[in-house]
């Protein structure tokens, strides 16, 4: 499946018997270009290729009866070792749980909050939604409309900046509704906006979330890396959701984030509808990234 993706590079290699170091380097140049075109961060590409090259010029390939196949296997293994061997479930668990969704403006947090609520509901949980976006016009309305669609209660947030009070009230309301998982939607923000990062830290202190999910647009470019690091530094990240993967972006940001944060990518958003959330499968994304 993966080798269908890497098409011409592997196809050409198979034409060779033994693979010289030069042939391997030529293949790596092509793979490098593929990964950069997939929006993988250039420094992550550099490091990743170095580890592939180290294995590729060694005995593994050199002494193999099928060097091209061995090379392809190494590329795949090295990709999977970064992306993850299997899907990691967002623990639906059984105890009371609070999940905070964070990320850049427009990445899909509000939509993902509703999708996640529906997913957890299907797993037998009782979600409660808390919109905390004091700035975006009709932000609360957006989450309320979505909540109504999936029959999940939504806290009537009025835009107040008294976050400690808002969070306490919201958690009380959630308890009153018999909810066992609280999903908190936050406003979009840049990781370099110190004022808004402080706001996020204040919200985080007030709700003490068990999970902080970075919601990242699947089409995000090279900044994905610094964005992820910025949010990690500010409040810590426990997992990632990659959105808008129903388009033709290759999603290389996933590789950059996995290589750097080493946190699980739980889900992919694959559409605007509330049911369009998929568990993240590393091998599927590997093929997609390789192009």
């Amino acid at each position, binding site marked *: 499946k993966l080798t269908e993706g890497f098409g011409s590079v592997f196809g050409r290699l198979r034409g060779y018997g033994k693979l010289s170091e030069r042939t391997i380097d030529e293949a790596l140049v092509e793979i490098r270009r593929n990964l950069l075109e997939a929006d993988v961060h250039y420094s992550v590409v550099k490091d990743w290729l170095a580890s592939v090259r180290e294995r590729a010029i060694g005995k593994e390939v050199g002494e193999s009866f099928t060097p091209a196949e061995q090379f392809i296997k190494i590329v795949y293994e090295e990709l999977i070792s970064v992306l993850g061997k299997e899907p990691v479930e967002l623990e639906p668990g059984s105890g009371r749980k609070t999940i905070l969704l964070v990320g850049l*403006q427009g990445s899909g947090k509000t939509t993902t909050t509703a999708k996640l609520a529906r997913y957890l509901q299907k797993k037998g949980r009782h979600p409660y939604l808390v919109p905390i976006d004091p700035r975006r016009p009709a932000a609360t309305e957006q989450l309320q409309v979505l909540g109504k669609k999936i029959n999940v209660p939504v806290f009537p947030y009025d835009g107040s900046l008294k976050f400690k009070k808002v969070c306490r009230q919201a958690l009380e309301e959630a308890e009153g509704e018999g909810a066992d998982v609280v999903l908190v939607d936050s406003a979009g923000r840049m990781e370099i906006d110190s004022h808004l990062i402080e706001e996020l830290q204040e919200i985080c202190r007030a709700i003490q979330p068990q999970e902080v999910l970075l919601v990242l647009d699947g089409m995000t470019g090279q900044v994905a890396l610094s964005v992820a690091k910025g949010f990690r530094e500010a409040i810590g990240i426990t997992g990632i959701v990659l959105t808008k993967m129903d388009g033709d972006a290759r999603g290389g940001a996933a590789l950059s984030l996995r290589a750097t944060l080493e946190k699980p990518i739980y889900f992919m958003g694959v559409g605007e509808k509330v049911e369009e959330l998929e568990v993240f499968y590393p091998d599927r994304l590997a093929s997609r990234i390789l192009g």
Partner: protein
Amino acid sequence: KGVVSKGKGTTLESVREALLAVDVGPQVTEQLLSRLQEQNHRGPLLEKLREAIRSDLKKLERAVSVREKPFVILFVGVNGVGKTTTIAKVAHGFQKEGRSVLLAAADTFRAGATGQLKTWADRLQIPCVMGQEGADPASIAFQAIESAKAKGMDVVLIDSAGRLHTEAPLMDQLKKIQRVSAKALPQAPHETWLVLDGTLGINTVEQVRQFQKALSVSGLVITKLDGSAKGGSLIAVAQSFQIPVYFVGIGETLEALIPFSSEEFVRSLFL
């Protein structure tokens, strides 16, 4: 030439990485570098590069020309790029020039979309034509232009729902908005502006390609350049498309919109 070995010394390699780091992409990066090496360079490579990019982008600078009344601009783009917010900023800009503006809330699909635009309209104290959820966006555009004609408004700004360029039926829906707008006013929409998110990578070029093919995009706006992103994918866009870039979004408030300047863009690119 090798992927892990150094190129022609670290200067070339560091310039290459500087381009990759801002989403220029590997293909256009190599095109730019080989173009520079062909021009027998005297002087620092980075300076020659800056100059080459600046002159490419200079061609995309243009002032908006309001050429009919009402002047109609349709805003399109993929999900979450900043269309609705940009419309509010552009409306504010026209108002400051003394022009009357009317908004068309033709995103009848997304939760809270009409409420979002209506809130901006109320803040700007301007009319906003809206419809029921699920109403035909083209009919809202039509009604808005008719209303603007009747009221003698100067400008109509049409908001549309975000959509991926890979969804053919949704691209067709935009074509319909254009066709039906022309029924209300033959030259409308005078402009179709594609809003691009400055934090996105190489997919930006494909967005321009597909939207341009479907709608003959007449202008670009690049948003979210107030963050760590530099919008370098615009350099790749400029290699294949000569669509003017009218504005740059640099924040979430009404004032956070500046005319595109190739000079300023290049200066911030390699900061």
